[in-house]
């Protein structure tokens, strides 16, 4: 129906903002986006839970309390409990040095901190195999001292620390750069010690950004697969983290158990996303960080 006939029928033509799309185009674009997201994000997420409960609650529960699964859950929690605090301390130190001072080579240092983001997880594991493996320089020395790093918990922790290395620092550097040094200088000139300044002035300023970084760091630490898979040795009940346990169960065609353990990790991802969204809405955390 053309504009003229509509006017002839007595209805004025509706105003349409010329800097806006036609309603039909809007609906088509929204539909396209939703269908795409449904196929690539929503259906995979839903299928994890559907497959996990395929044979009912009791099978699901059995798969989680089975000793190897329980050991994998404990190991995953242990690895995250060690690697997240390490990277938290590093993130605080690196962002303090980078954001509060002007020094030569700063942007090069930031590039180096970002390095693990652009390295394949498999290579992150490989570098430790080359460093500590039996035919490396350090391997025989450590072996004679009775220290095992590869195919044991220390190797898994190292690989996880490597992969999650930039998360906290990446979040804090832009945030602390934005805040500048005025607050700290005021505190110091009023007689606060350096430690007091950090504890009572800087830390309250960055706490939500810090929480945001820790959240992302933790999600990756618990879910890391490639790097850990290379250094773990896949010893059931001993060096299998949850993602590795999922792989073993899946390759044994034990799909219900694989998806049951996977559903716990998916739940962790959902909780992480919910908290992340909450932090962004309430405190604007992460807005400065951008990239992951």
């Amino acid at each position: 129906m053309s504009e003229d006939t509509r006017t002839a029928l007595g209805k004025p033509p509706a105003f349409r903002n010329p800097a806006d799309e036609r309603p039909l185009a809007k609906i088509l674009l929204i539909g396209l986006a939703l269908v795409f997201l449904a196929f690539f994000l929503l259906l995979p997420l839903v299928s994890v839970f559907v497959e996990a409960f395929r044979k009912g609650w009791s099978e699901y529960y059995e798969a989680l309390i089975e000793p190897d699964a329980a050991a994998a859950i404990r190991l995953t929690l242990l690895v995250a409990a060690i690697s997240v605090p390490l990277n938290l301390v590093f993130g605080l130190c690196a962002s303090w040095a980078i954001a509060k001072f002007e020094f030569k080579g700063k942007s090069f240092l930031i590039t180096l901190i970002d390095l693990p983001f652009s390295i394949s997880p498999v290579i992150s594991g490989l570098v430790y195999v080359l460093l500590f493996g039996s035919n490396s320089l350090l391997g025989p020395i450590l072996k004679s001292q009775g220290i095992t790093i590869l195919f044991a918990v220390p190797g898994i922790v190292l690989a996880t620390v490597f992969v999650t290395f930039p998360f906290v620092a990446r979040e804090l550097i832009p945030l602390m750069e934005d805040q500048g040094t005025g607050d700290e200088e005021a505190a110091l000139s009023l007689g606060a010690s350096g430690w007091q300044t950090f504890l009572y002035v800087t830390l309250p300023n960055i706490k939500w950004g810090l929480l945001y970084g820790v959240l992302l760091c933790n999600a990756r630490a618990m879910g890391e697969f490639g790097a850990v898979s290379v250094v773990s040795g896949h010893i059931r009940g001993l060096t299998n983290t949850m993602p590795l346990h999922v792989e073993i169960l899946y390759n044994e065609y034990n799909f219900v158990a694989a998806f049951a353990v996977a559903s716990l990790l998916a739940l962790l991802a959902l909780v992480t996303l919910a908290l992340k969204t909450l932090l962004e809405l309430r405190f604007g955390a992460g807005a400065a960080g951008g990239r992951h």
Partner: protein
Amino acid sequence: MIHNATASPAKWRLKRPSIIPGFGLTLGFSLAYLSIIILIPVAGLLWRTAGLGWSGFFAVLTDRRTLDALYISFGTAFVAALVNVVFGTVVAWVLTRYNFPGRRLIDAIVDLPFALPTAVAGIALAALYAPNGWVGSLFMPFRIAFTPLGIVVALVFIGLPFVVRTVQPVMEELDREVEEAAATLGANRFQTISKVILPGLTPAILTGFALAFARGVGEYGSVIFIAGNIPYVSEIAPLLIVIRLEEFNYAGATAIATIMLIISFVMLFIINLIQAWNRRRYGNV
């Protein structure tokens, strides 16, 4: 060489003077930690590669299986990044411009690939796109899982948030008045979008493409379950590294890792160039 006139010009300083304490401690700790965790291990990899010599390095590199694995990794990552550029831009547009029920929820779920462990994504996508899966059965007799197309599906999943989250903030900053000006000058909506809006988004879209591509090339966990892992057909380079390690073929694993590392450094360099170009053209975005 131009010297800063205010500071003592002849003296080279590491850092500008400041009353804030803790520089030595925090920088020292950061550098030590960085060296132990990242620099020394990566240098070890490069040192091992140097030990292979050119002939050893090229022998691995020109091996048919290595070349095919590299071709598959880079090819599928390229296709997936292209898909993400198209759909990621549409998703970012819909999320910034339109209001519809569930928009907040969908905005949050775009980050799912950042939070969901790759192995979980891998088995879920494999189950979904397998010939007997919910989506895979729709496309039968055309197979998605266990072919290179399955790898693309996994890499689209992994790369999507990189494109959406780099394009979205730039879209939010776009000045609506420029679009109104285009309309008053007689441009139709399509012309405004293709000639006014898209050129402003190009640097962000390119950065998103490069980030998604770089991540896709190295991706392992989500791919190996859906790929089928047939040598020469659907075997990705990171998997070939793992296979070489399991065969105790350290030379093979090291050489493949080094070539991937070099290519990702080049990618990182290109991303920085795009962002520098972007800053020169549009100010600090």
